[in-house]
């Protein structure tokens, strides 16, 4: 049993990290009242931007490229949704398609029609002394590429920002009652633009992490629905930074379950483990029902 736990925790954290980045970005967007279904597009743009920049400037600067690419895609989304007041869902679907389609096309154009696997420099793990020796979880949480440790900074900062600062209060006010926020002198449009750019940066970071710290290559399906999973994670995490991080770990654990099930010979089809988090999200949504923690103006145009 103990031989199975360490790889299980490691697989959990590994899967959860890019999901957590993306979901924290989505959290801020949704708190401002915008549901960003285009997140999938920002993640894959980040992955591709990271690949292109890392190829000439190394993995470290690759992350800058990833964040910039994510923000670019998010800016297109914000222009339509905030400035033109378009429908969030329809725009978001189009933005996801735009991200997936344009990176797929560019990848073929740059790296050949065969789409051959391509190696890119990756970040080496940076183990933290002492902490890495904690049994079972030490390696998984403290012997990772440094980008993962960013989470340990971002999560508490975000939690503090959203609940304890006036800017965070403004963000939540815009998500609940934009007209009331406007009466209080807050510009909902500006708050949403900033929130969406942050969301894009985090989506880009998520894609960059995939390519530059985990997989070491790019392929057209690399985002693999993570943008949509992130939306589920925000629901499951009940729109709080800590809750969202926990929910990301839960999704990571569910997908790691397939390896554990194989190792332990449980004989459950692996697809059930993969589908479980989505079903859980539906159950969580139903359980929360009309008392849901969702921002009151979530998804409302304007």
């Amino acid at each position, binding site marked *: 049993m103990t031989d199975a736990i360490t790889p299980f925790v490691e697989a959990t954290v590994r899967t959860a990290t890019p999901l957590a980045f993306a979901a924290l970005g989505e959290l801020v967007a949704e708190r401002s009242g915008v549901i960003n279904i285009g997140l999938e597009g920002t993640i894959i743009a980040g992955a591709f931007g990271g690949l292109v920049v890392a190829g000439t400037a190394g993995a470290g600067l690759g992350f800058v490229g990833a964040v910039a690419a994510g923000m670019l895609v998010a800016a297109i989304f914000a222009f339509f949704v905030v400035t033109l007041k*378009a429908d969030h*869902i329809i*725009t978001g679907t189009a933005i996801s398609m735009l991200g997936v389609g344009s990176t797929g096309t560019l990848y073929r154009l740059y790296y050949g*029609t065969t789409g051959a696997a391509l190696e890119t420099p990756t970040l080496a793990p940076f183990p933290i002394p002492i902490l890495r020796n904690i049994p079972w979880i030490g390696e998984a949480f403290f012997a990772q590429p440094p980008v993962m440790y960013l989470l340990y900074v971002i999560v508490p900062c975000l939690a503090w920002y959203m609940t304890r600062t006036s800017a965070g209060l403004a963000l939540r006010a815009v998500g609940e009652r934009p007209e009331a926020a406007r009466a209080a002198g807050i510009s909902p449009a500006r708050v949403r633009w900033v929130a969406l750019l942050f969301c894009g940066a985090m989506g880009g970071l998520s894609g960059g992490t995939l390519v530059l710290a985990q997989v070491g290559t790019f392929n057209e399906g690399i985002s693999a629905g993570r943008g949509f999973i992130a939306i589920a994670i925000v629901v499951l995490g009940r729109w709080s930074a800590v809750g969202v991080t926990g929910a990301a770990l839960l999704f990571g654990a569910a997908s790691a379950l397939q390896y554990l099930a194989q190792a332990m010979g449980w004989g459950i089809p692996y697809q059930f483990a993969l589908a479980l988090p989505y079903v859980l999200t539906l159950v969580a949504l139903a359980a929360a029902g009309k008392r849901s923690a969702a921002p009151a103006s979530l998804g409302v145009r304007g």
Partner: protein
Amino acid sequence: MTLRAATTSGLFSWRRLLPPLLVSAVVVGVIVVVIVAGHHDIIDSFSAFGRGSFGSAYAFWSATLVRATPLTLLGLAVALAFRSGVMNIGAEGQFLAGASAATAVVLSGVGGGMVLVIALPAAVLAGALWAAVAGWLKRRFGVLEVISSLMLNFVAQYLVSYLVRGPLQEPTHVYPQTETFGPAAHLPLLISGQRLHLGYAIAVLLALVLWWMFRATAVGFRLRAVGAGAAAAESAGQVVVPRVLFTAFLLSGAIAGLAGGVEVTGVTYALYEGISPGFGYTAIAVALLARLNPLAVIGTGIFFGALEAGAAAMQRDAGVPFQFVVVVEALVVLGVIALEWTRERGDTRR
């Protein structure tokens, strides 16, 4: 999104001509950029595009219209939902549910020579049930249908993955797909020597029925009224909004399920994981470009069918990456949104 009927200004006014001109410009523009950036031959590429889409009778009947069939049916499913104010983005999942149910019926061996008479209704039912989950969650618990229908897409995807690697896998257990259906489970072909099947005729007929339903029946009126403004419809009386929304969900899912059943019995004759290359998402572009009008969906379905058929030929014969099609689809949707915005702004100024 508030999509309204086209304005009544003159038949050849700029307003009417602008959308098709813009869409054509976007398509040609993206193709040219991709061709030039990839150093492909422009003439070769465009002639491959033409050959693959409209260039010959075979291209039109066997590539463009065969591709247009699921896009038209799913476009109708999306148009019906959006017009009724239901943000069903679960057409993809409902399509997969329908395809799975039809496959299960065919492989079970029931019905003998009449198997299609059972398989297609099973697909309709499965699609409706898959949509009903999201519809029920909305009605009973107030769950946002966008999130629930999206989650159900992934569940459906894993369900298909499980079926074709588990209970429905072909007898040798080597490939992740079902065995090929026998001829009794093939939809009749419409023209001899062509791949076009009965499914396309069903799609066109359904478009006519939905158009008539929205125009002339009480159900259609209720759906439209709720879509135009739920609160107003409720206070005007005679309309129970939650029930109407649920009905719209069921109908939309039923059509998407039918599309899945039609695809496995008309085109693939088997079920496998990648059976839908995102048809359910492309369908959103199909419906929006048609401005949610069922009759216009016939046209936009052919448009996107030709685009995908032409792009496939362009990749095969000239090496131009197929993925640009998705960029075009996304830009079409964004273009429709932008046009809608200029129209709304024009209205408020007057």
